[in-house]
């Protein structure tokens, strides 16, 4: 299991490959990997930049917690979550979530669970720069 919150730009595909390379013990058992990659949109070229604030400490604790829940709830082998914070530009990767399993159903279910829990409860906040101003993205649904 790995959780990383980073201010650095990252390539989700090379990050996925790098973590996959550490899972030597799972080779032969793993038959499915489900991944989710979230990317920053420009909303019709209206949003120039995005700042992602978070609650250092609670964010990592929350993401570790949902990863442990996923590992207990489904028959999966491993999980990975990488989330960007700080300043970013349209096209940048915001989040990578992946779940490794023997079969596709638990891999899909765990990956879906992780991204839905992250989006609804992990303490991150988006602030968009639009023209000369900036606005907090409204999280009230």
């Amino acid at each position, binding site marked *: 299991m790995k959780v990383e919150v980073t201010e650095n730009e990252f390539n989700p595909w090379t990050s996925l490959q790098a973590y996959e390379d550490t899972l030597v013990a799972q080779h032969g058992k793993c038959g499915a990997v489900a991944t989710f990659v979230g990317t920053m949109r420009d909303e019709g070229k209206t949003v120039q930049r995005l700042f992602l604030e978070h609650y250092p400490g609670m964010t990592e*604790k929350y993401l570790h917690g949902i990863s442990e829940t996923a590992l207990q709830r489904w028959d999966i082998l491993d999980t990975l979550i990488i989330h960007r914070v700080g300043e970013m530009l349209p096209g940048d990767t915001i989040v990578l979530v992946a779940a490794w399993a023997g079969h596709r159903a638990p891999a899909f279910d765990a990956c879906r669970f992780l991204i839905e829990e992250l989006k609804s409860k*992990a303490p991150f906040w988006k602030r968009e720069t639009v023209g000369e101003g900036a606005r907090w993205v409204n999280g009230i649904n």
Partner: protein
Amino acid sequence: MIAVKFFASLREQFGKSEIQVDSAEPLTVAQVWALACDNAPLPSHILMAVNMEYSNENRLVQEGDEVAFFPPVTGG
């Protein structure tokens, strides 16, 4: 001391990211909010955490605890 943290739009609204609250007795999270925010009403959509875990306004906190208030989250 109880550390009180604010994030995102709430931090901007109150113009502070962290303050300390002093109390000889345990306080509820709602009482911590009232002390920290000059008795401003607690907005209904605000989320709360005690020691980095989600909590509610009735939870009791004491010396050394960390309480955080923040708006609905928008990560991912």
